[in-house]
């Protein structure tokens, strides 16, 4: 009996004494919130990370006054032969162990994207700490520049970017989506494009405003704040970036791939073309049906949309069903225009099926798909696309029509 106890005790001691291998105190970790990957002229990888500075958040006590959290992240870059290599070298500069568990976004620089992204995505998918739900972006220019920003509204620009893309302003692509697109035999990848744009002035200490009366009495009144912005979409062929889609074309892409969640469509008024009417999107649904007769490929795209009319600059009478119908038709045309813009780019400029039409084809024609999948890009480029849009405005907000002269 005693012997057994002693054995048990020894085993227990071994477990506890040899050190708790995986235990990490929070103040031993460098929490990475965002990562950016660029390539260097020599062909290496440059890794940029945004690391949180916990001290800037204050301890338990409240700090009154809205001090801008300008220095609550630390952005640092390092060059290496692979991402893991760069990370290891980064540890020479960073006093703590890099912790990827809370990484929210990953930005791929334009140069790396043009070279081929498959070079760098493997790190993110193999590493157990990095989650496959991180948002992927491609930067116009260098990723490092984008990361070196701070956000006025969120804690860090990484979070700002994450929230923005989740809200549906651009095309949302998580790591897993990117991997699926890259692995697909017909669909080519897209990534939202991220950049910095001037967005107001920094509301600094003491809230110095840039107003005329105060000019001359303040310093720093001409500083400009640059906030991360979604500026479109990057289109890929294979794993190489081949071009950009601007905002309007991105909307078209969202329509065609049934990913439209939120948006506003502005159309000119029927009576007064200088005035605009804006409709807020409530619900959107897209169905794509391919047709193949052995030689020709065409698609029928059916888009259904429900919207709420929330702004009317003109004065026309909405209770008139004729006018109402015209507005709806204008909306349809606006949607179709965007869709066609995107299609043009995809078919003619890129010759890449970024719209996942290939998958719809696969589902319907599984036998034929096996035969033609290798030529899909060419066939897709020559396909006809018929777009049928059914746009309805279901609600008009709290007003019916405007009072004359109001």
């Amino acid at each position: 009996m005693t012997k057994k106890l002693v054995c048990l005790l020894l085993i227990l001691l071994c477990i506890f004494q040899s050190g708790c291998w995986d235990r990490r105190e929070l103040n031993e970790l460098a929490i990475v919130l965002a990562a950016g990957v660029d390539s260097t002229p020599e062909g290496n990888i440059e890794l940029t990370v945004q690391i949180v500075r916990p001290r800037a958040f204050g301890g338990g006590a409240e700090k009154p006054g809205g001090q801008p959290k300008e220095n609550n992240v630390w952005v640092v870059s390092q060059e290496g032969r692979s991402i893991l290599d760069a990370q290891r070298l980064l540890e020479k500069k960073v006093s703590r162990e890099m912790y990827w568990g809370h990484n929210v976004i990953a930005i791929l620089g334009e140069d790396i994207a043009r070279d081929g992204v498959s070079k760098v995505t493997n790190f993110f998918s193999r590493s157990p700490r990095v989650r496959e739900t991180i948002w992927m972006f491609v930067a116009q220019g260098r990723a490092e520049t984008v990361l070196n920003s701070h956000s006025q509204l969120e804690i860090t620009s990484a979070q700002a970017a994450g929230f923005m893309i989740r809200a549906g302003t651009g095309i949302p692509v998580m790591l897993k989506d990117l991997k699926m697109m890259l692995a697909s035999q017909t669909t080519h990848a897209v990534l939202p494009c991220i950049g910095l744009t001037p967005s107001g002035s920094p509301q600094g200490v003491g809230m110095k405003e840039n107003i005329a009366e105060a000019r001359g009495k303040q310093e720093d009144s001409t500083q400009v704040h640059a906030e991360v912005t979604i500026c479109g979409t990057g289109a890929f062929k294979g794993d190489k970036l081949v071009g950009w889609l601007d905002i309007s074309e991105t909307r078209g892409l969202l329509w065609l791939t049934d990913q439209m969640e939120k948006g506003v469509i502005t159309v000119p008024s029927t009576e007064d073309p200088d005035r605009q009417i804006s409709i807020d999107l409530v619900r959107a649904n897209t169905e794509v049906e391919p047709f193949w007769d052995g030689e020709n490929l065409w698609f029928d795209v059916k888009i259904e949309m429900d919207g709420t009319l929330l702004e009317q600059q003109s004065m026309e009478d909405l209770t008139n069903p004729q006018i109402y119908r015209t507005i709806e038709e204008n909306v349809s045309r606006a949607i179709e225009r965007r869709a066609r813009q995107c299609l043009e780019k995809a078919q003619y400029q890129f010759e890449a099926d970024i719209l996942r039409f290939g998958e719809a084809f696969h589902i319907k024609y599984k036998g034929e798909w096996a035969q033609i999948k290798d030529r899909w890009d060419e066939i897709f480029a020559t396909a006809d696309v018929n777009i049928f849009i059914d746009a309805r405005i279901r609600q008009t907000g709290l007003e019916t029509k405007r009072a004359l002269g109001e």
Partner: protein
Amino acid sequence: MLRMRKREKQKGNGGDHSSEIRNRPLSNNIEENLKYLREIFNNCSDVVFREFLLAQREQIKLAMIYIDGLTDKTRVSEEIMKALALEVPMATSNTEITKANALHYIKMRGLCINKIKETGNFSDVINAVLSGNTVLLVDGNNTAIINETQGWEKRSIEESKTEIIVRGPRESFVETLSTNTSMLRRKIKNPDLKIETMELGEKTNTQVALVYVAGIVNEGLVEEARKRLSRIKIDGILESGYIEEFISDNPYTVFPTIAHTDRPDRVAAYLLEGRVAIMVEGTPVVLTAPSIFMESIQTPEDYYERAVFMSAIRGLRILTMILAMTLPSLYVAIISFHHEMLPTPLLLSIASQREAVPLPVFVEVLFMEIAFEIIREAGIRLPRPVGQAVSIVAALIIGEAAVTAGMVAGTTIIVVPMTAIASFTVYYSGSIAFRTLRFPLVFLAASLGLFGLITGLIIIVVHMASLRSFGIPYLEPIAPIVPGDLKDSALRAPWWAIKRGPNLMGQNNPRRAVPGMKPKPPTVNKRE
């Protein structure tokens, strides 16, 4: 404290004469008897020997022996002495009282006492005197009369201080066995409620009662309980806890396999379910066996308040018990190993707090937990005058100063008291196991994170699954699943739904509530 010594044979004077006394009979001569008794009770100044004469009969001497303080003096004076010393009514005036028939007339016509017993040996006499009875010796007879005159200072029936409920009876047991049994009798007015008494403890001769309801209880269980009780050989039984340790199935475990309580309604409920109760003279705490895990988280109030509400409360209690056991270790595990479990803003907030604190999390948590245990234990033992001041200081030290001094982080201050408060949602006796177990779990969590914590929990569950209490698996009705009993485990089905007694204990009580008792609104008689 007393050392537990098994029975020893002592040599020399004033030793253990029990075997001699047991068999020594009384003699006819009152003087001899008295002499012997005076020897036995040598140096016991509270034993009173009162000799007097029977109702003006010079030749018949009587003697009363009792212990001052254990007896009701008025009754002794009035009902024994006065009754016998003044007048003994007789059937016919012709009959003479002689030494031969004196005993008969005293017993039948003289004594005004309500309960008497006769005995012929000294061991009963001594026992009786020690129990607070008055022994009456009659000259010329070798039989003594034991009069029940017990009456000592005892605590009145008060509310239980450790098992408190909002709705229900407030009585709790006292230290006197007869009062306790009377409380049970009032609750179960049935001749099937059997109370078997025995004496345990070589030196203390404490009265212990085994209580059960014949017909409901499993005979084998009663037999087993009797067997285990009779096996006990120890010099003294001062509290039911002593007995508990001797008859437990598994004395090493932290989980109690024998429940204890000081509430009569709880004991009565258990008896009706087919358990046995063990009451000990001198303590209000009564043992009940067998005891399963579910009992330790139940309170009698569960059965008095509305079913739906109490089912939710029971669920809450189970949750809080798990929390009380695992919360500190969960905290340590997540903060030290699994940082990705926290939402990012929370993580950042905690990270900023931890910047200020030098100690690793689990040292902090351990420190706080130990501090709390110290406060709790001290709080029980505090003398009332200093209580107020000390608790304020303790609160200030732990709460305010530790954080401000940077020894402990703010979040730890939340976790530890929450654990502590959570553990008090069930009665103290049931929570001991969980509160003890949280310490090893913290160590496991500190070395291997959530894996360690789950390992610890698995070991605990395996251990609990292997326990039996008097033959009943400890985790019944969860494992093995007994569907009928599930209605009364984590939930509490209304009384009209519990149709059968608990399966493994109360098989003989198949019908608790007759079916069809569910309340319904009255149907309107349409014919009218």
